[in-house]
């Protein structure tokens, strides 16, 4: 391990390692975390490499403290991240709401495992999709990304930091155990090809730091800006105002609006074979890996499968799913949970076509291409 970023080239990397290296490429120089399977490798990798790059990696007493320290470091002017799995992600929800409310850029990684509760700690799952959307209390709009390869662990964590800086908000990278522990090829591009976004700084002390525009500038600490940061309802200057309904309305609508208004710019997805498809599949994360294969298997059975693979889960890529629904006769939503994103697909596409769930939980067992094919044939025929 060198005291610099990996040179451009092809590496054989575990998903978690690729993510940790990607965070360093993104400019992350503060990491705080608490050990948890299957996310611990991120903390271990960064414990070793972060100080070599002049950054700080610290193991905290719990997940709340981890995200709290990340938020402090972010206000201190440093790009910061934490990583956990479902149980820790549950504990972080209070601070996720706080980061959203205070418009603090932060990276939050959740490597999903089989829940609820301690569940099957070492086994993969996709059960935190709705927690990532609605986990904290009150109205909010998170940005949640879903990688499906080691390569994307590297790439999407950079996207996550860029989005966090651009929109002054926490960004969740929702991966799963299979992607996190899989080892495969990762291509590190020339460093100059990686574009980084930095938070906007205020031009004057009079500018509001918590309003005025959709994404207000974030002032640095210790330079006399007299920043008042609070998780309570506050006016555009950060001053707590908890009695005025209009101030809360304005704040909540702006915070949600700054993400939803820019959804088109934020959302990333892949689409395959949308023209002339019989069956459409909407998938994300490890489950999406089986879809590439089922497209071929179905073709042999004279069924054309169209596919939308979500890299962004929230805000939900409605337009892409609608387009698939317009082309396909039925939609199938395979997930390693007992129906979560299915409901969102049904909401968006249900009026256009029939949407069917395909679910599997337990033991981290993947939904195989054969199982997907059987479901396609059962629902569509062919």
């Amino acid at each position, binding site marked *: 391990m060198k*005291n610099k970023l990996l040179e451009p080239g092809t590496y054989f990397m575990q998903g978690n390692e690729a993510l940790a290296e990607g965070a360093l490429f993104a400019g992350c120089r503060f990491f*705080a975390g608490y050990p948890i399977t299957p996310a611990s490798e991120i903390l271990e990798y960064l414990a070793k490499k972060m100080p070599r790059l002049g950054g700080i990696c610290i193991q905290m007493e719990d997940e709340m*403290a981890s995200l709290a320290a*990340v938020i*402090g470091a972010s*206000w201190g002017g440093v790009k910061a991240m934490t990583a956990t799995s479902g149980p820790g992600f549950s504990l972080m929800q209070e601070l996720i709401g*706080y980061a959203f409310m205070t418009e603090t850029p932060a990276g939050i990684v959740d490597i999903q495992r089989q829940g609820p509760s301690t569940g099957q700690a070492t086994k993969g799952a996709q059960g935190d999709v709705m927690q990532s959307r609605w986990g904290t209390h009150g109205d909010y709009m998170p940005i949640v990304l879903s990688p499906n390869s080691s390569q994307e662990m590297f790439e999407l964590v950079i996207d996550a930091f860029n989005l966090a800086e651009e929109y002054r908000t926490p960004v969740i990278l929702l991966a799963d155990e299979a992607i996190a522990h899989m080892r495969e090829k990762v291509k590190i591009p020339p460093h100059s090809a990686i574009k980084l976004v930095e938070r906007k700084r205020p031009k004057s002390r009079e500018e509001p730091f918590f309003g005025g525009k959709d994404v207000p500038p974030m002032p640095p600490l*210790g330079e006399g800006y*007299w920043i008042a940061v*609070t998780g309570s309802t506050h006016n555009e200057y950060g001053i707590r105002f908890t009695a005025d309904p209009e101030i809360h309305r304005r704040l909540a609508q702006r915070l949600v609006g700054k993400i939803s208004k820019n959804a088109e710019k934020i959302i990333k997805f892949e689409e395959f074979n949308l023209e002339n498809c019989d069956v459409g599949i909407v998938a994300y994360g490890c489950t999406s890996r089986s879809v590439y294969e089922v497209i071929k298997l179905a073709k042999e059975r004279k069924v054309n499968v169209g596919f939308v693979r979500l890299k962004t889960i929230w805000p939900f890529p409605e337009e892409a799913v609608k387009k698939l629904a317009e082309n396909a006769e039925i939609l199938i939503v395979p997930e390693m949970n007992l129906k979560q994103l299915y409901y969102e697909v049904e909401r968006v596409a249900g009026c256009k076509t029939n949407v069917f769930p395909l679910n599997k939980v337990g033991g981290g067992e993947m939904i195989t291409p054969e199982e997907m094919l059987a479901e396609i044939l059962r629902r569509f025929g062919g």
Partner: protein
Amino acid sequence: MSEKFSQKMFLRDLKLPFCPGCGNYSVINCFLRAVYELGYRNFKNFVFCSGIGCAAWIPSPYFLADSIHTPHGRSIPVAMGIKLVRPELNVVVFGGDGDLAGIGLSHLIHAARRNVDITVFMINNQVYGMTGGQVAPTTFLNLRTTTTPYGNIERPLDVSRVIADVGACYVARWTTIHREELKESMKRAILTEGFSFVEILSQCPTMFGRHAGFKSPAEITKWFKEKSILVEESKKLSEQELADKIIVGEFITRKFVPLSQVLKGLKERAGGDRNEG
């Protein structure tokens, strides 16, 4: 700089929100005088963190300063994140006993153990005041609160003793009647390299006094006066004799390399490829 002391140097033009007779006014006065006497004329070198509760409102947003008002109990890890990336700033936490010794106790202990170089002021009014006067982990035995209508059945936590034991570099406890001593301790705490902690027994006439049977703020401060005993004096008494006392004074002063300096050294040690492997 011979500018005369004025609270206006350090406060926003906002009305403080505390009840008449609240101990927070004394705490603010002592603290502002302490920083003034240390030579500061504004809060440019400071960042304040606080959690939830009346004491957490001392800096946020009333201090003309950078202040971060965090969720309940989380002020210390937020302060730690700031201090580690901005070691040149004085990072100061204000919090109540519920915030720091109830929901946030684990963070408080670990910050002291790690010797994070921050300063923590715990305003101990022995009650959850903002929520209406419920029992706290610091409430004396047998006192009545809204959730101990028959008297508190649990023994209080001696937070200062715990924090001194787990590795803090400076720990002191006073009450709001010990103004001069408190101000001096606040100065020492700010100057301490390493984790420093000052506990301040403070009167809450509205939510504590009312239920515990004190008719005025002065009755509570009189009670503080009667119960207070200096730490040096306390050594002559038995545990039984001390059961009903508030031990005040400095509990510990020690030197130990603070965490931000340890991390600086770590970066130097980790740097380079010689640790290949």
